[in-house]
């Protein structure tokens, strides 16, 4: 193929392509999209990522950007400290739904209300992946988890939280969108939303958040190739895709 040119390779901001996440997981695709954008926008040298705790905590050691590892739920306050003392840095948080919406809901709400000028990214797979498949605040009604056997029930387990809509109604948020990485067109939109969120931060407009629905076939108890269909069928109706605030 000597006459062919390489048109797609994994971004060099990924120091190693091998990782330990499950077959069919959506998080690596979301991560790669973020890193591609950072590379293309020339932000690597000023990027500080604040990482939460979840399956994606495997990423910091393979991402060639500075990362501050935060506690479960606490990335928004840590990112606040970072951005306040390094206003020229490009700061984004990386959290899961358990991290942001269960453990750390107060943190993200206040950071958004204050209009902190960083970008919050939440990978929402509606389940605690790393602990092995337990209910989070975004587990949808009827969804089977190890703590909602028989399906999440409104009476027994309460209702799921739409974090993006919550954030959007706060005056300090400037850009809020929800994407999914279960289809090529979804990935393309995720990339667009992330790009617009990053621009919002770079233009100093306020808090930006992108919720990315990701597949977790392992803890949805479906084969990996059924992940995208499960996401489309169960998550998208509850968590509609699109730009919510800009």
């Amino acid at each position, binding site marked *: 193929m000597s006459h062919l040119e390489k048109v797609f390779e994994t971004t060099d901001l990924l120091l190693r392509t091998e990782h330990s996440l499950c077959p069919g997981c959506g998080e690596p695709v979301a991560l790669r999209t973020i890193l591609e954008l950072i590379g293309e926008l020339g932000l690597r040298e000023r990027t500080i990522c604040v990482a939460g705790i979840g399956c994606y905590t495997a990423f910091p050691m393979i991402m060639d950007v500075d990362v501050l590892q935060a506690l479960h739920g606490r990335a928004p306050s840590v990112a606040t400290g970072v951005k306040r003392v390094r206003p020229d840095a490009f700061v984004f948080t990386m959290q899961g739904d358990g991290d942001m919406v269960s453990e750390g809901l107060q943190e993200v709400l206040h950071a958004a209300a204050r209009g902190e000028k960083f970008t919050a990214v939440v990978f929402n797979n509606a389940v605690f992946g790393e602990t092995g498949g337990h209910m989070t605040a975004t587990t949808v009604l009827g969804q089977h988890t190890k703590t909602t056997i028989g399906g999440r029930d409104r009476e027994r387990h309460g209702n799921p939280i739409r974090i993006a809509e919550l954030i959007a109604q706060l005056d300090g948020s400037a850009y809020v969108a929800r994407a999914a990485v279960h289809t*090529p067109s979804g990935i393309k939109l995720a990339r667009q939303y992330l790009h617009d969120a990053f621009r919002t931060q770079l233009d100093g407009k306020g808090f930006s958040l992108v919720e990315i629905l990701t597949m977790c076939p392992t803890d949805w108890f479906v084969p990996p190739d059924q992940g995208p269909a499960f996401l489309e069928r169960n998550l998208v109706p509850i968590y509609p895709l699109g730009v919510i605030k800009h």
Partner: protein
Amino acid sequence: MHATVTIDQELCKGCLLCVPVCPPRVLVMSETVNRKGYRYPLLLDGCTGCELCAKVCPDFCFEVYREPKPRGAAAA
């Protein structure tokens, strides 16, 4: 041949996400398994270099190659 992909078979975890998104349907799963124990995609003739397999792959197995556009053609 106008396009192709390379597949790092040892990175693959056999999730199959690449197979259905391939428009010309030129990815098929192997009969044998890699060192991790997963079947992995094999490329048949007819790749268009559309990159969709690479975009959806969670394990970063794919690189995509295409024939350069002829000089001057881009202006058209």
